[in-house]
């Protein structure tokens, strides 16, 4: 009998969840360099049986050893990678077969911070930060003040017209973060957002993410930084051997009480 309600259909998208993964797997094509989307050889999968939800307004860390697939998981969420198996829903819409126009619309609701920044070298700091607003067709004269204020907040006020090649690693990271949050996205994804900045600035950036989360954004941050994870006290999703686990918060708290005296609480 066909499912009558969303509760009956375990694959039915739930619009209360910003992100939903159901039985998602991702594998490499053994016959070529590309990730394949149709194969079913479980041994070839780098991620498998991923089942999780990110409810609206939630804040999660995503952690795991290098090469565990954190970036691949983020790529699937921001529609740069289609899964090999399972189903992904975003903002209550199934996205496995979203067309390019739908992908563009969905991405406008996502802010992404890349590990390698992905800044445009021929645009200055202001333009790089304002890019998502410009792409949405907004008038630069209207967003000029907001973008300048945001760049001031991340410490780049003096570098508004600087080109990315003249920025330090930390400045590039702050600019990438500013670009990700400039259009008040519903979902913020960040891949090692504090990897190139000092601890104090890292905490400042984390406060920005927490503030945006309080304003309603759903946040998922991939990081190795255990200190930051402990300092925030936010729930953690951990990738191990291709599968996703929820970290036991009690054990984490005990660990935090034992050895985390140096962590500054956010």
């Amino acid at each position, binding site marked *: 009998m066909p499912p009558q309600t969303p509760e009956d259909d375990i694959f039915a998208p739930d619009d209360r969840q910003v992100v939903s993964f159901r039985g998602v797997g991702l594998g490499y094509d053994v016959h070529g360099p590309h990730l394949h989307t149709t194969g079913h050889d479980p041994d070839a999968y780098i991620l498998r049986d991923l089942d999780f939800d990110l409810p609206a307004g939630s804040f999660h860390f995503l952690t795991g050893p290098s090469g565990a697939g954190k970036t691949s998981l983020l790529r699937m969420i921001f529609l740069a990678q289609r899964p090999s198996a399972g189903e992904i829903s975003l903002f209550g819409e199934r996205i496995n077969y979203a067309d390019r126009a739908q992908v563009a619309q969905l991405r406008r609701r996502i802010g992404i911070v890349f590990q390698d920044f992905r800044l445009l070298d*021929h645009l200055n700091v202001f333009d790089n930060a304002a*890019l998502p607003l410009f792409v949405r067709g907004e008038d630069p004269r209207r967003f000029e003040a907001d973008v300048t204020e945001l760049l001031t907040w991340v410490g780049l006020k003096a570098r508004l017209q600087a080109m990315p090649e003249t920025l330090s690693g930390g400045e590039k990271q702050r600019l990438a973060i500013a670009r990700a949050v400039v259009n008040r996205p519903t979902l913020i994804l960040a891949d090692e957002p504090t990897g190139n900045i000092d601890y104090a600035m890292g905490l400042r950036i984390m406060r920005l993410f927490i503030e945006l989360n309080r304003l309603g954004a759903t946040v998922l941050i991939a990081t190795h930084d255990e200190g930051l994870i402990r300092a925030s006290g936010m729930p953690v999703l951990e990738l191990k051997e291709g599968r996703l686990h929820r970290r036991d918060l009690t054990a984490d708290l005990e660990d935090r009480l034992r050895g985390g005296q140096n962590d500054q609480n956010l």
Partner: protein
Amino acid sequence: MIKTFSLYRNDLLPQQDAREISLHYVIAVLCFLASLAALGALASDRAASGWSREIRAEVTVQVRPTGLESGSMAAARAAELLAGVRGVEEAAAVEPEKAKELIRPWLGDAILNDLPIPNLVTVRLDPDHPARPDALMSALSARDMDASIDDHSIWLRDIEQAALIIRLISVSIFLLIATAAAAIVGFATRAGLTARANIIEVLSLCGASDWFIARRFQVRFAQMAGVAGLIGAGAAALVMGVLKTTALSQSFLLALPFSWYDLLILIPCPVLAVLIAAFTARTVTLKILGAGLLGEGV
């Protein structure tokens, strides 16, 4: 302060690189050739219509004397008779000496004196309402004159055919150049997209639609084609100006009579270049993005 920022100039692609300078040059050369083809077509068309108009306005009548009448008397009578026909501006008997002068270059003096010289009447027709050959013939027959009429129709047909061939060649050259320009812009767009795949990926990840990205390339290539088209058309105008004003080219102008008004045909040339470049760049960009040829993330 922000006025100098790129986004105010609506320019998300990097400034031109060496590839685009070469493209400028190629499009300028193509526009130059297309402009010359257009100017040549106009001038040759004008020359052909001039020649056919002249030929159409003139008829030669050969009169054969009858009875005791001499050849020159018969020619004079025919000329007088034809001058009164409606649609004839002027009719004059050709003097036997003049007729000999016309034949001499082909036959030479040796045999010219032994040959009978035809008795000719040249008839200049009204160019707007020319008399028909059969009207001339009936006027002559009514007076029992033995005559034949050469309305130059064989030459006219040849000239009209030549003019048609020149027109077809010009249109073919124009179409060839237009398709070559489209192919080059398509190639440059593909190269530009591949070289800027990283930029397009970032734009895509920021939520840019394919149409938004295609518009960037469309505007870029349209601007380039516009500038190159103006340069090409300007160069063609310069060549025509030099040909028209220098004494050395007067004989050339007899064959291809240019007019200053012909320069007006150069105006659509850069416009066409812009349209071809914009359409090609947009189509190729949408096709490449739609096919996912720049990678799955784009």
